């Protein structure tokens, strides 16, 4: 079973995606029929503990979030490379082990560099 790609196996996946979209939208549309709609200005204002909103809501935020996002891309791609290796590990033997250790060591160098540079530190 493992190893073959059969597109028809994905029909259930597409069906459940469609079904859950229907559930989500259905809950909202069913509510549309019974719920009240009485908007006025104060009700539609953004919540700020009862005060009038001050300034722009989308103000500048810490550059840390961007760094985390970049590191995530690096490490997530690494994880994706590890999956096929893990599944086929029994068949790869020593060769697969050495190859992946080299890959992990290269990544660790980057990881240690990011750590030393303070990219992982939040204050």
């Amino acid at each position, binding site marked *: 079973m*493992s*190893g073959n790609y059969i597109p028809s*196996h994905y029909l259930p996946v597409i069906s459940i995606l469609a079904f*859950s979209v229907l559930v989500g939208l259905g809950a909202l549309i069913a509510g549309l029929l019974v719920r009240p709609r009485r908007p006025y*200005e104060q009700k539609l204002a953004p919540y700020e503990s009862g005060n009038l909103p001050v300034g722009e809501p989308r103000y500048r935020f810490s550059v840390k979030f961007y760094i985390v996002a970049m590191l995530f891309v690096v490490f997530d791609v690494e994880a994706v490379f*590890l999956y096929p290796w893990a599944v086929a590990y029994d068949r790869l033997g020593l060769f697969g082990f050495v190859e992946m250790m080299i890959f992990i060591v290269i990544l660790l160098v980057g990881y240690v560099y990011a750590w030393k540079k303070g990219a992982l530190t939040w204050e």
Partner: protein
Amino acid sequence: MIEFAILILKIAIVIGAVLLHVAYVVYFERKVIGHMQSRLGPMRVGPHGLLQPIADGIKLFFKEDIIPAHADKPIFYIAPVLGVVAALSSFAVIPFWESFHIADINIGLLYILALSSVGSYSIILAGWASNSKYSFLGGLRSSAQVISYEIAMGLSLVGVMMLAGSANLRDIVAAQSGIPFILFQPIAFFVFLMAAIAETNRAPFDMPEAESELVAGYATEYSGMRFGLFFMAEYAGMFVMSAIASVCFLGGWSGPDFWLFAHVPKVVWLLLKIYAFIFFYFWIRATLPRYRYDQLMNLGWKFFIPLALANIVITALIKLAV
């Protein structure tokens, strides 16, 4: 055609069960936490408050759907639906017992991880589209947290895939027919459990909705059924994570095979394991105070990721030696 009808029926049964689960797990949570704090929990609606989830659900339908004047409307509309779709679609690959599963694909685990990433989109889009300070901060924090812990979670499952030689959840259960993987992969189990709590934004890692500082985080501006959809996504996500933990580490639907136990339907064992995990979630919430955000990110990046990587190397070494 008849196969397709059976498929749709299966999906309807699973999704229906999940929706019922979501309603009653909230009741379960309130009861558990109530008793842990020497309270009774909900008692008014029906005997021992058993009708409380129904009343809550009906109330959500009748609540006004307030859309802030400055919100980014299309994104504001679809964000909760996206979250629900991501959470409910994950159930496609979970094997409930030997012959009951919706989709049998060879990349089951990858599919679940991919959908949990899609779920984080719903959070950041909701935070962005609300155009409110609390929502914006909640969305940002949550997405940074979710992507950080997703790496640890993804890496912790690599050990399981190495032992099973497959990413298909049915194969993983079959590979544990003797001994559950928790005995071979205790480190991975620990990392997965903690990452799953952070991934579903549960206490003590519920930073994005830290009510003492961010009101309701990314869901601050949401009301009525749209808020209900976020709730649904969170509790369905908890169920998915518990199911993955049961399937990958505790042997899924397999149970003791002697005496009277052999006659118990397989799905009961799976549900017992899943609800044990869900009880564990509530227990932790009642016991531990919330982490600080910098502590949370440090823990994820400086402790769990190296630990998960070390686990992969150790597993590879041992498999090579055996």
